[in-house]
């Protein structure tokens, strides 16, 4: 498959620069996002992968301005289409949501209001942001439902969410997201709750949206297979930080961080016949008791003395970086010694 390459003639649809988000808890200050930098360029599908609690959803919420009340941005910058939105007031943030950034949640049925017909919900963003009269908004909703390949959109538009199948509900959510042609679409595990066959259709639809509208997509998942199939670029998150990032084919071909390597090995495939399923021993550290050095050190099979201090992003190859001291070990062991 041909991957689109980063077109840097326009500003990135999303640029997060050294973002740090903290939550005050009874057990101390929790650093739920720690020094995360991330870019999504126009027409690109960028995957964020990580276990639960790795901060991937929190990253999405921070750029929507919908973090929990006690969370706050302690440092860093978020830019949407070149415009800084880090500390925008609530009302201005609200105007961005649904018009310039759309969010597709994991569980479409629970994200749809059970008592409102589908067309009223799909037409809602237009009514909120552009004051489109309801009759036009509803007509537009039918068009949107047709665009996401829902069968009989006229009829289906008049139905309630529970009359839809899981895949149709997710299509309706995507239609709602596309309503105002946003420049960035955030999809938070949109296929996790779906059957594998339906999952493939939804992924195909997302790729089609990117190709026809040039929409940038931030795809959050814990499924490496989906990343390999769909994304151009991937960020591997762990305990609130990005451990490795790069173009998908490079990262999959040469995973540099032990965590990425273990993730790849833990994903069962048909080709690699495994006698037993692999898992990574240990647990993700709690955000209020992060270790001083590398946050993966406790579970890492290659741990050595350097891991007591936190590694920076080190170059693996062009555009592909990882936060692991092993890279210096293998490449320039001599310089590391000299530096110390």
């Amino acid at each position, binding site marked *: 498959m041909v991957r689109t390459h980063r077109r840097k003639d326009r500003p990135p649809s999303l640029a997060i620069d050294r973002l740090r988000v903290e939550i005050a808890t009874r057990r101390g200050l929790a650093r739920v996002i720690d020094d995360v930098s991330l870019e999504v360029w126009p027409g690109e599908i960028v995957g964020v992968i990580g276990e639960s609690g790795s901060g991937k959803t929190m990253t999405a919420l921070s750029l*929507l301005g*919908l973090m929990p009340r006690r969370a706050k941005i302690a440092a860093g910058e978020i830019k949407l289409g070149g415009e800084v939105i880090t500390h925008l007031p609530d009302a201005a943030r*609200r*105007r*961005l*949501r*649904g*018009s310039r950034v*759309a*969010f597709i*949640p994991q*569980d479409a049925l*629970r*994200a*749809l*209001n*059970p*008592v*409102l017909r589908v067309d009223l919900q799909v037409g*809602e*963003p237009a009514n*909120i*942001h552009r004051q489109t009269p309801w009759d036009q908004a509803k007509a537009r909703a039918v068009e949107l439902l047709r665009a996401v390949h829902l069968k009989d959109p006229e009829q289906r538009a008049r139905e309630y969410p529970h009359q839809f199948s899981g895949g149709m509900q997710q299509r309706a*959510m995507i239609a*709602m*997201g596309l309503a105002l042609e946003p420049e960035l679409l955030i999809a938070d595990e949109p296929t996790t709750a779906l059957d594998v066959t339906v999952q493939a259709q939804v992924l195909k639809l997302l790729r089609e949206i990117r190709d026809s509208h040039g929409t940038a997509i931030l795809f959050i998942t814990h499924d490496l297979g989906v990343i390999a199939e769909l994304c151009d670029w991937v960020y591997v998150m762990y305990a609130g930080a990005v451990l490795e990032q790069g173009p998908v084919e490079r990262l999959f071909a040469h995973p540099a961080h032990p965590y990425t390597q273990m993730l790849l090995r833990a994903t069962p495939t048909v080709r690699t016949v495994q006698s037993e399923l692999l898992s990574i021993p240990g647990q993700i550290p709690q955000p209020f008791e992060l270790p001083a050095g590398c946050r993966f050190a406790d579970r890492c099979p290659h741990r050595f003395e350097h891991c007591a201090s936190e590694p920076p992003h080190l170059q693996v190859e062009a555009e592909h970086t990882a936060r692991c001291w092993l890279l210096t070990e293998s490449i320039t062991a001599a310089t590391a010694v000299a530096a110390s």
Partner: protein
Amino acid sequence: MISAAVGSAGHRRRINWRRWRLLAIGGFLVAIVVFCAVFANFVAPYSPYDLDVASMLQGPSAAHWLGTDEVGRDELSRAIFAARISVEVALVAVGVGLIGGTIIGIFAAYFGGWIDLALMRLMELLFSFPAILLAVILMASLGTSILNAMLSIGIIFIPGFSRLARAATNDVLRQQYIDAARTIGMGDARIMMREILPNVVTPLLVEAAVAFAYAVLLESALSFLGLGAQPPEPSWGNMLNTGRGFMGQAPWLGIVPGMAMFLCVLGFNLLGDGLRDAFDPHLRE
């Protein structure tokens, strides 16, 4: 396996029938009362105001089915016209309570924090008074009129509705479609109107049916005390008060308004219970 399935289906049908029976009886009684209230001019055989001293304090007869009162007015006609007052008062009072309580409850739950605290303490303050005492206090300060009776009874209902609305809203706020509404840029007012209100309205309407019965009772109590409908305006309450003085000579003067009140309250209560059961997911099994 199969017999168990059939058994549970039969069980379901039996509960369905019981649910229907309550709704049917309650609905029938309420329909009679509402019909009398709306079409009092056509249903009542006489005017409720026309005096006929010649035929005062007569017992039930072919001309006056339920007898006449101390100034010769037809008791049946007065009871029918009294239904109009009762239904009017109950309708406005429940409306005031329902709308006021729903707004306060949704606001309290949605904004939480000190707004929730302040509003709910205020509601508890209202709740702590016995209903009839509060109504009398409100009437004393607002002045005696039927409109003020509607208002004071409505105010009494606000705390109950607000608690119910708040609890239901708290439930809805935990649902993901609220978060999803925020992700498309919905504002607070719109979330409350479009996402929360339609999802909390069912329990509130059920409560409204029960509150209706209570409003009828309260209106009668106020009128009995001379604070509600003013003579010669007929109300079950002031008719009962009149009847009290003629217990020995003309017992029908107490029995007629009492029975009317009883049937009306019973009807609304049964309707409320029926509605509650019909919407209760636990009884659906």
